[in-house]
């Protein structure tokens, strides 16, 4: 047995240490691409255990990769350089609600949707709602700075974090931020850690902000005969004194895929639809619904449907949820991107995507959170087809370039991980990236904390092919 394993066993129970081949392969992947066999997968169920594991890793120079439920779409928890996958998903759930302060303290293993469930019992809401919220842990959401449809009105994970407890790469425990909304004491390390993808340490506790839960919601579905009008409609709504909680976009390819998969009454002839959700008091919603309808008709929308009952509204959202399974029927492999552009540039981005699709002869469908410019172009392909995957790699590169050209960014909510690392310099510039790297190096001098993420190796390229 290696020395580091012996050292680990001193404080970690045997059943939390996995070294068999079946177990190691079970922690070799996430929801993105690639498979990397770790030397061990180890479960931590308390702060003390995390401290011990990190100290051992630091002492023996073993890379360590924090992991929640492995739903990451950018390769965050992949053990690309071997070493230890640190599974935090089995840490006993702890949710301490401070309703009067509108805050909640949570353990890293808590499923994100559970936080909102608890908050609702007190008339409050935890707004970030990534589509995987019922599966993903808050620890993973914090590491990746996850978003979701409600990001439009309420912001993303980082906008809801007041304080963190972190085990540093050297095994020390620090606390950042605090319990208050206002806090300007020193550098904002909290915001630095959120979205650092596990490269700066292991988050062991978070204090999150809650907001009052809106008493009612209203859904509106709008059809468009061209994407440009849809783009204009989004901007016009947002400049008319209305801030919907969600504005979700589906292009024609998505609509048709859903209707082929499970007919849900979506308009197959529409070039695009935008599904809007307003939230607030019922009286306000009644006023805003009419305003939105007028804006849409004035700007040239083909049709506006306002569901009369919550069941009808649920049907529309159910159809939106069918996008993933429906497009999986087109081809088995899904390369899901989250390049984000300024809202006014959505039509331009759609044009660029169309050109890319033609140029590389790949299947592209687009849906996403159009209200905040966060589109999800998905390329449907088959990873067994090496030639096709080569074209997909080129198409993805060009999607990133298009987003950057239009003043946008590589990633709105999925994170950089391994998949987007090669494009970092394009967006940040040499010095910009170098400054980030300096921060990383001073936090983690031995480079053991989630190596191989965010920062590209020299000459690193996007690879979606095996071998």
């Amino acid at each position, binding site marked *: 047995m290696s020395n580091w394993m012996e050292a680990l066993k001193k404080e970690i129970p045997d059943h939390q240490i*996995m070294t*068999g*081949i*079946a*177990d190691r*392969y*079970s*922690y*070799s*992947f*996430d*929801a993105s691409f690639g498979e990397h066999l770790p030397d061990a*997968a180890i*479960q931590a169920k308390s702060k003390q255990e995390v401290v011990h594991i990190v100290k051992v890793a630091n002492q023996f120079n073993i890379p360590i990769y924090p992991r929640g*439920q*492995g*739903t990451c779409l950018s390769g965050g928890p992949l053990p690309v350089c071997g070493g230890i996958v640190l*599974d935090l998903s*089995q840490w006993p759930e702890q949710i301490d609600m401070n309703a009067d302060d509108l805050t909640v303290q949570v353990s890293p293993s808590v*499923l994100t949707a559970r936080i909102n469930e608890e908050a609702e019992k007190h008339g409050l809401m935890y707004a970030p709602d990534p589509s*995987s919220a*019922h*599966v*993903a842990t808050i620890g993973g959401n914090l590491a990746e700075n996850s978003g979701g449809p409600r990001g439009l009105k309420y912001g993303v994970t980082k906008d809801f974090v007041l304080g963190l407890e972190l085990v540093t790469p050297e095994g020390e425990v620090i606390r950042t931020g605090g319990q208050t909304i206002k806090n300007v004491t020193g550098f904002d390390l909290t915001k630095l850690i959120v979205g650092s993808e596990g490269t700066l340490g292991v988050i062991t506790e978070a204090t999150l902000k809650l907001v009052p839960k809106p008493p009612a919601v209203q859904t509106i579905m709008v059809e468009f005969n061209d994407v440009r009008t849809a783009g204009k409609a989004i901007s016009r709504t947002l400049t008319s004194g209305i801030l919907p909680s969600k504005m979700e976009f589906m292009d024609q390819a998505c609509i048709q895929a859903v209707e082929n998969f499970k007919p849900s009454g979506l308009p197959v002839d529409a070039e695009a639809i935008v599904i809007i959700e307003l939230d607030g008091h019922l009286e306000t919603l009644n006023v805003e619904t009419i305003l939105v309808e007028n804006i849409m008709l004035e700007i040239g929308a083909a049709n506006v449907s306002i569901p009369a009952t919550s069941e009808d509204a649920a049907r529309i959202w159910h159809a939106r949820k069918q996008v*993933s*399974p429906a497009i*999986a029927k087109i081809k*088995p*492999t*899904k390369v899901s991107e989250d390049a984000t552009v300024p809202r006014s540039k959505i039509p331009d981005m759609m044009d660029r995507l169309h050109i890319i699709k033609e140029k590389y002869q790949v299947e592209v469908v687009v849906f996403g959170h159009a209200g905040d410019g966060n589109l999800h172009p998905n390329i449907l392909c*088959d*990873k*067994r087809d090496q030639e096709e995957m080569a074209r997909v790699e080129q198409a993805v590169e060009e999607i990133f370039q298009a987003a950057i050209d239009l003043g946008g960014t590589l990633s709105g909510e999925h994170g950089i991980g391994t998949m987007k690392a090669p494009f970092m310099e394009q967006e940040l510039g040499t010095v910009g990236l170098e400054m980030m790297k300096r921060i990383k190096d001073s936090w983690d001098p031995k480079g053991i904390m989630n190596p191989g993420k965010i920062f590209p190796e020299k000459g690193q390229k996007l690879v979606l092919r095996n071998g």
Partner: protein
Amino acid sequence: MGELQTLQQKINYDKTFDCVQCGYCLPACPTYETLEKETHSPRGRINLVKMVAEGKASVEDLEKPMEKCLGCMACTTVCPTNVQYGQILEGAKEVIEDHRVKSASRNRIEDFLFGSFFPSEKWMNTLGNLTWFYQRTGIQALANISRLTKLAPLHLDKFEKVIPKQPSPKERAQRMKRYIRKRPAQAKVAFFTGCVMDGVFFQTNQNTLELLLRFGFEVVIPEQQTCCGALHAHSGKVNDSIDLAKRNIVAFEEEEVDYIVNNAGGCGARMVEYHHLFKEGTSWHKRAKQFVSKIRDISEVLVEADGMFFNKSVDKTVTYQPSCHMTNVQKVKTPPLQLMKKVPGVKLKELARPDFCCGSAGIYNIVNYEDSMDILDLKMNDVCGTGSESVVTTNPGCLLQMKLGIEREGVSHTMNAVHLVDLLLEADPQQQ
């Protein structure tokens, strides 16, 4: 074809690509919850199948994770990309079984059969008539129990305690095979008796017949019917299960019926998938499709029957533990609830997590006793929380497991477990 390619075909390697590893199955999987490892989750298992098919891991590596799978199929209901997990699981079980046959010693099987199973008088009484049971299930199913449990003690005593009193062989033999109806019938149905239902819960089967007759159905019980083959398929004996499917198709083709009715969620689930066992375009596939189109759970035909009412009030608080296979494979969810709501006096309190498996899962509770009990404890927590006096189920395995759970919790003086048909008959259904 190379060895790896043969393996890939058998293990359904191609189907593993439908899994995008999103992890949405994790919260639905009972064994991920109790065993706390990705290795024991649907996503983890599919990935391991892929690793074995790619030669990166061995068949032995796959054995334990697959053996620990309940096969409850809760993952298939939540899967956003419609992965055919059932087929991947069965392919993996078959590969594991083939691999084991080549290397296993036969002694252990005999040890079990002659050392533990035959000598148990209670078991033998339970199964009524041994010859009869063997004709139904085939000895392989039992042999399989023994080999799987070679390392673990069997907890047969625990099961003996909760098995109902058995009818005499004479009573069994006296059951009629055909009930002709003089008045117009709701429909003509063939009753699929099931082996465990008929062996262990004979009275419930009798009650099922009684219900069908009272509800105005004409009923036949084809004599040549046999085991549905679910247990065989779940233990990797695919050829045996195909053979049984063919025998059933033939047996039920001989009768002109509208429906083939069963009262065991697991058997029904097996039978609605018979067509997957045959190649499309073949005559067996066609015959299987015809057979499948007639399969109904008892609750489905009863809920559709007109003009019935319940004469007697059953003043009880009950909860309902749905059979996973009925929910996730047959997709029959509401008929049992609709029927219970019609019974006067019954106060139905639904479980917080009805779709969480009870841990019975075919013979899982025998071969993986400890794991099964961990799952059962979670289920009983939920059941006891409803304050019910009766747990209603629709499958013999679940019924046995619920009885076991009630014993384990020490609440047998305040709670019992019954099959849905027993409850319905208690309410004395009558035609208007």
